[in-house]
Structures are given as structure tokens and as C-alpha cells.
């Protein structure tokens, strides 16, 4: 029972290898079987250990826990595990085409699932590094899966930038190992008060955080995200935006937990970083015309909001950030998968060329509308809950509140712009309705609605946090939302739809690879100066 994490990691990998070796179409069903087994195991594991998370730690080989590799779980990692299982179900159902699915695709996809479980559940820093590197290579291959010219470029760009970040992470691990003699995260957490003020540990913190900043697409190293999303298949974009990027934020939480005893004052720095990410993300999103690029830049800006939540000292706001991770995973993957269906039928990605989606495919439109309402924070949907928590927590500080308000307006504007695809007459027929795709979209939409309404019992049961101070059915909340929508509509009508410069300049702004390297090094230096020297 205690070894279930190992099964969770190994079963998808084994299934993927078997599928690859027997290049048989019927073997593809093995993927669904493996996924079902993983789901059952995850549920059993949670039921056995809930409330008793200290007992989940074990060391491979039974060696001394400062020498061997250990794995452990707690409420946060298990909730991420469930999110992973759910997202992978959705992606598998979406891409599963009876008898036509490429076995290479399923091989890489399932392998990535096993590796991602490893990132979530491991308790050892070097193990985390190995899994991060493996995940980077797998995601590169999935991005470049189409084998066309710009797929390669985006894939290699992603690989190089991410490998640079992961190598910086490795140097941080080396410095920690020198000082602590062990790389077991629990042991380091306990020993941290002894060494927390040493220069070498602070520098290690800077290096670890730089690696994580690259992986989480924070400002200014987020440029790989739009490149990757523009060329990847929609299912891969959904996976990347919904989950893999959140892996970086999960690591952020873990490393900060590890360094908790050292009491660095990282709150202000990462709040500013998060705010910058959010604003820059929304700005770029407003200038784009390509549907998937819009969604990609919105991922960047929502990650900024999550970082604003996670870098707060207030427990409630922190929890709002964590909750936003889950909510965003749901509605962003919903939007990407829906966008995939629309793009496949309309054969174009430009928002101003697609019209009449509502009449052509009503169900997909309804699910997309659910996603859009969630991301703009409408009451009754799950985006509202996390955004309200963050809003409620920072309402004391004027500038923080107005920043969040501006970001919300920007988000609303951009989705009003995108909602024009629904209007208009039916222009194309929608011949091949894949039931599994619709089922996947429907499940995620239900998830959004359920999490938006039954949030009090769910959060109480899973995390033990009381959210009863958030009320949905207050008139003020609805008014607030419609006010945001109205300002967004006016902003769109008068400014964005005219498309005057500087908007096209922002759209075509791109950073060359060498410039992004220089920016990465500049980020490390700025963090060093802030944390080490100040």
C-alpha cells in the first residue's frame, strides 16, 4: 500500500512501452486500461492515508533516509495527482480515435504521465532534477510532433531555454548538497535553521528559483510559452498550459516550504514578478489575432495572478493562489480543447475569420462559453472563487487591488473579442462529431461548474480550509462582474477593434534566442542582488 506512488509512476511507463513494442491498433486500448488502473490506485491511496500523511514517506531500498531516495506525499501533492489523472483522461479521450491513433503519440504521452507523477511525489532534489529534464525532452518531442519547420524551431527553442533553466537548478542542488550532506527534502527542511543565513545557501536559493521561473513561464522568461503553443496540437497545448506549467509552480511551493525556516523575505519580490507577468501577458494577449496565441498569453497572465497569490503572507490569499492553479488547469484545458475542435473544422486560427460557431456546433460553443465565463471570473463558475479569495485578501492595499482589477478588465476584453466567433450564420457543416471529444469537453465543463458551486464542502473536506466567507449570491458580486464586462466591452470597442499602432507592433514583437539568454542571466543577477546582497 505504501508503494503505490511507485506503481503510479511505473504503470504508465510500462503501458507506453508495451504499446510501442506491439505496434498494434488494439493495443491502444491498453492506454485506457492503464489510466483506469492508475485512477483506482490513486483513490485507494488517498483513502488509506488521508489525515496521516507523515506515514507516506518511504525510502527506496530501505536505506538511511539521508542516503537513499525517498518519496512522500501530502494533501497538496495528492490533489495535484488527482488533477493529473483527470487531465490525462481528458487528453486521452480527446485524441483517441478508434484505430487511428498514432502509437508513437500514445507512447510519449503516457511516458510523460509517469514522469509527471514522479515530479509530484518525489522527496529528493536530484530525483526531481532527473524528472524535470526528462519532462523537458518529452514535451519537446510532443511539441515538435508534426515534424514541420516551425514545429522544430519552437520545440528546440523550448528545449534549449528549459535545459538552461534546469541546469541552473542543478547547480543550486549541488551547492545545497555541499552544505547539508544530503538531498532529502524533509531532512533539509529540518536542518535549514542551522545554515539558512549562509551566503552559499542564499545563492542556492537564487539558482533554484531561476530554474523554476523558467519552468513556470514567469516574466521575463516566458517567451517559450507562446512559441510552443502556436505550433503544438491543441491537446498538447491543453496539457502544457493546464498542467506542465503548473508543475513549475508546484516546485515553487515545495522549495519555499523547504526554505521556510530560513525566513527569506521573498514575498514582495515575487509579488512584483507575478504582477508584471500578469500585466505583460494580458497586454500581449490583447494584441493577438490567432486564437491559440491569445489563449497562450492568457496562460502567462493567469500564472501571474497565481504567483501574486502564492507570494503572499496571508494564508487565505496563498490558498487562493493554490486554488487558482486547479481552476485554471480546468478551464484553460477546456478552452484549448474546444479551440482545437473549432480550428480543425474551420481550418483557420484567426479570430476575425471564424464566425457562426454557435449555429454550427452548439454543444462545443456552450462548453467554450462555460470556459470563458470561468476565466473572466463569473459567479457560479470556479474562476470566481479563486479570484474572489485573492481580491478579498489584498483589498487592504490600494495598488494591489487596482492592479488585479486592471488585469481582470484586460482578461474580460480579450474574451469579449474572442466571443465574436460565436455570432453569425452557420457557414460550415460539422460532419464528424466525435463523441469522445464532446464527452471530454463536457466533463471539464461540469468540473468547472461543480467547483464553482460546491466549493465549501470540497475545500473543507480536502484541504481543511473554510471558505464560507465567499458568497456567490450577493448582488454586489454580480454587479461587480457585469461592471468588469462592461468596461471590457467599451475598451474593446473603442481601442482594440480599431487595431491602431502600437497594437500591431506588440503583436509582432519577438525576442531572439540570444536575447532571451541574456534576459535569463539578467534575471539571475537581479535575484542575486536582491536576495544575497540586500
Amino acid at each position, binding site marked *: 500500500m505504501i*508503494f503505490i506512488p*511507485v506503481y503510479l509512476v*511505473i504503470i504508465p*511507463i*510500462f503501458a507506453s*512501452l508495451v504499446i*510501442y*513494442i506491439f505496434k498494434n491498433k488494439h493495443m491502444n486500448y491498453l492506454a485506457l486500461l492503464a489510466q483506469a488502473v492508475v485512477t483506482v490506485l490513486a483513490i485507494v491511496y488517498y483513502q488509506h492515508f488521508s489525515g496521516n500523511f507523515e506515514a507516506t514517506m*518511504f*525510502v*527506496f*531500498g*530501505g*536505506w*538511511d533516509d*539521508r*542516503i*537513499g*531516495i525517498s518519496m512522500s506525499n501530502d494533501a497538496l501533492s495528492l490533489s495535484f495527482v488527482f488533477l493529473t489523472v483527470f487531465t490525462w483522461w481528458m487528453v486521452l479521450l480527446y485524441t483517441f480515435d478508434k484505430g487511428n491513433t498514432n502509437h*508513437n503519440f500514445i*507512447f*510519449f504521452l503516457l*511516458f510523460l504521465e509517469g*514522469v509527471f507523477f*514522479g515530479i509530484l511525489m518525489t522527496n529528493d532534489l*536530484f*530525483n526531481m532534477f*532527473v*524528472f524535470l*529534464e*526528462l519532462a523537458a*525532452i*518529452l514535451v*519537446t*518531442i510532443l511539441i*515538435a*510532433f508534426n*515534424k514541420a519547420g516551425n514545429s*522544430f524551431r519552437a520545440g528546440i527553442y523550448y528545449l534549449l531555454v528549459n535545459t538552461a533553466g534546469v541546469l541552473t537548478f542543478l547547480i543550486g542542488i549541488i*551547492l545545497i548538497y*555541499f*552544505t*547539508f*550532506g*544530503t538531498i532529502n527534502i524533509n531532512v533539509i527542511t529540518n536542518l535549514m535553521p542551522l*545554515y539558512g543565513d*549562509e*551566503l*552559499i545557501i542564499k*545563492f542556492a536559493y537564487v539558482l533554484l528559483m531561476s530554474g523554476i521561473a523558467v519552468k513556470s513561464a514567469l516574466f521575463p522568461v516566458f517567451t517559450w510559452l507562446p512559441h510552443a503553443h502556436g505550433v503544438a496540437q491543441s491537446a498538447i497545448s491543453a496539457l502544457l498550459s493546464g498542467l506542465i506549467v503548473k508543475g513549475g509552480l508546484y516546485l515553487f511551493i515545495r522549495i519555499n516550504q523547504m526554505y521556510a525556516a530560513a525566513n527569506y523575505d521573498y514575498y514582495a519580490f515575487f509579488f512584483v514578478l507575478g504582477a508584471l507577468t500578469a500585466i505583460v501577458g494580458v497586454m500581449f494577449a490583447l494584441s493577438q489575432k490567432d486564437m491559440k496565441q491569445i489563449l497562450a498569453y492568457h496562460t502567462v497572465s493567469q500564472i501571474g495572478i497565481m504567483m501574486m497569490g502564492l507570494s503572499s503572507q496571508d494564508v487565505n490569499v496563498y490558498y487562493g493562489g493554490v486554488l487558482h492553479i486547479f481552476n485554471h488547469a480546468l478551464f484553460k484545458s477546456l478552452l484549448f480543447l474546444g479551440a482545437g475542435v473549432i480550428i480543425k473544422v474551420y481550418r483557420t486560427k484567426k479570430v476575425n475569420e471564424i464566425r457562426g460557431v454557435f449555429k454550427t456546433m452548439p454543444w462545443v460553443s456552450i462548453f467554450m462559453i462555460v470556459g470563458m465565463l470561468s476565466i473572466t471570473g463569473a459567479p457560479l463558475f470556479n474562476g470566481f472563487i479563486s479570484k474572489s479569495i485573492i481580491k478579498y485578501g489584498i483589498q487592504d492595499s490600494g495598488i494591489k487591488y487596482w492592479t488585479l482589477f486592471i488585469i481582470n478588465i484586460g482578461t474580460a476584453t480579450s474574451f469579449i473579442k474572442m466571443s465574436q466567433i460565436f455570432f453569425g450564420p452557420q457557414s460550415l457543416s460539422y460532419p464528424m462529431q466525435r463523441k469522445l471529444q464532446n464527452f471530454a469537453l463536457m466533463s471539464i465543463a461540469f468540473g468547472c461548474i461543480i467547483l464553482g458551486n460546491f466549493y465549501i464542502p470540497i475545500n473543507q473536506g480536502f484541504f481543511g480550509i473554510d471558505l464560507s466567507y465567499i458568497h456567490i449570491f450577493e448582488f454586489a458580486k454580480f454587479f461587480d462582474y457585469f461592471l468588469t464586462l462592461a468596461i471590457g466591452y467599451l475598451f474593446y470597442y473603442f481601442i482594440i477593434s480599431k487595431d491602431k499602432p502600437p497594437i500591431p507592433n506588440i503583436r509582432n514583437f519577438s525576442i531572439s534566442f*540570444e536575447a532571451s539568454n*541574456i534576459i535569463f*542571466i*539578467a534575471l*539571475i*543577477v537581479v535575484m*542575486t*542582488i536582491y536576495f*544575497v*546582497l540586500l
Partner: protein
Amino acid sequence: MSVSKNIILFALLSVLLIVFMLAMQDLDVLYNSYGRDYYLLYGLEETGSRNLVSAIYLDYRLFDSLFEAGILLIAVSGIIWISKHDIEEKNAKFMIDKYKTPDLFVTFSRLVYPLMLTFGFYVIINGHLSPGGGFQGGAIVATAILILYYIDSERETNIGLIVTIEKYIFMTIIVLASISLFTRGTFFTNFMPLDASLQMKSIYLVLLNLLIGFKVALGLWTIFTAFLKEGR
């Protein structure tokens, strides 16, 4: 790169270098040798391997090594996938091989090839006694096989078969590592019990080293063949 970019880059990197050197100054005081002392004291008895590096990556931290081997597997599969072309390669016989290997090199390679192969296998099998091991020996064996391409540049290699064998080997490694669940009650360690003699424990080490060595050699061979075949 323009001069201003050079200067900015140089300034940034020197700031990092200065901070790093400052941090390294009290390394002698801070250096925690818990890990090193433990391995020196207990490494030989617990794992049966005189080479402590092999002890670490084959026993204490086997989980890491599995996924390092996995990285190689994924890299090979990715390269194979990306370099496959849809147009039938038989039609594309228009590339003339302009370079012919000098005869001296061919003769020398024929002499050296069996030596390299033997040395590679020696490094693999003796990984637990002297520096070396599966990964290193596998790389040497791969280099030996690559020499064959210089001798005979028209070699036909069945990449599909090699990649399949490699995946079978990977699964075998995982299975072999998991046998310890039944004999010792925990995953991913030596399947001999803790109190077995050193010779018995080294059976596991040699076996695992051989499998890893084969895997690495096949992987590197595949990568090289994929590059050679690109566009043919």
C-alpha cells in the same frame, strides 16, 4: 553580437562570478561530509561493490539511474520519430557519397575494432570493481560499433529492430530492479538479501551493468545511424 551586448553580458557574468567566489570561500568550513563518510564506511558491505560510484547508482539511488536510462530511451525514440520521412527513401537515392575513407584509416580501424569492443566489455563487466560501469562501458562499445561505419559506409542497419530490443532491455531492467520487492520487501535495490556474501551481491551488479551497457550502446548506435540516414 554588438559591442554593447557583449559588455552587458560580461558585466552580468562577472557579477555572478564574484558572488559565486564569495560563496565558495567558507566551503571548507561548511562542507558536510555525512554522505561521504557513510559511503566509505558502509558502502562495500551493504552493496557488494568496491567501486562506490557503482554502488550509488546501482543500489542506493537506482531509481535515478532508471530514469537516466529512460532519458536515453526517449531521446532515441524522439530522434527516430523526427527523422522519419514520408516519401519512400528508395526514391531518394540521389545523394552521391563524395567522400571515400582513406585506406589507411580503414585498415587501422579493422585492427582497432576488436580491441575497442573487448575493452568496452571489460569496463562494463568490471564496473563494480574498478572505475567504469554500465554507462561508461556502453559508450565505449558504441564508439567501437561506430568505427564500423567508417570501414563500410554502405552498411544497412535495421533501426526498428534495435529500438525494439532497447525497449525490451529497459523493461527487463525495471523488472530486475523490482524483484527486490519480493526478497527484501522494498523496491529498487539488490535482490540478494542484506546478509549475503559479497560475491552473491555482485551477481546482481554485473547483471544490471550488462543490461545498462547494452542499452546505452544500442541507444547511441541508433542515434548515430539516424543521423547518417537522414535524407538518404
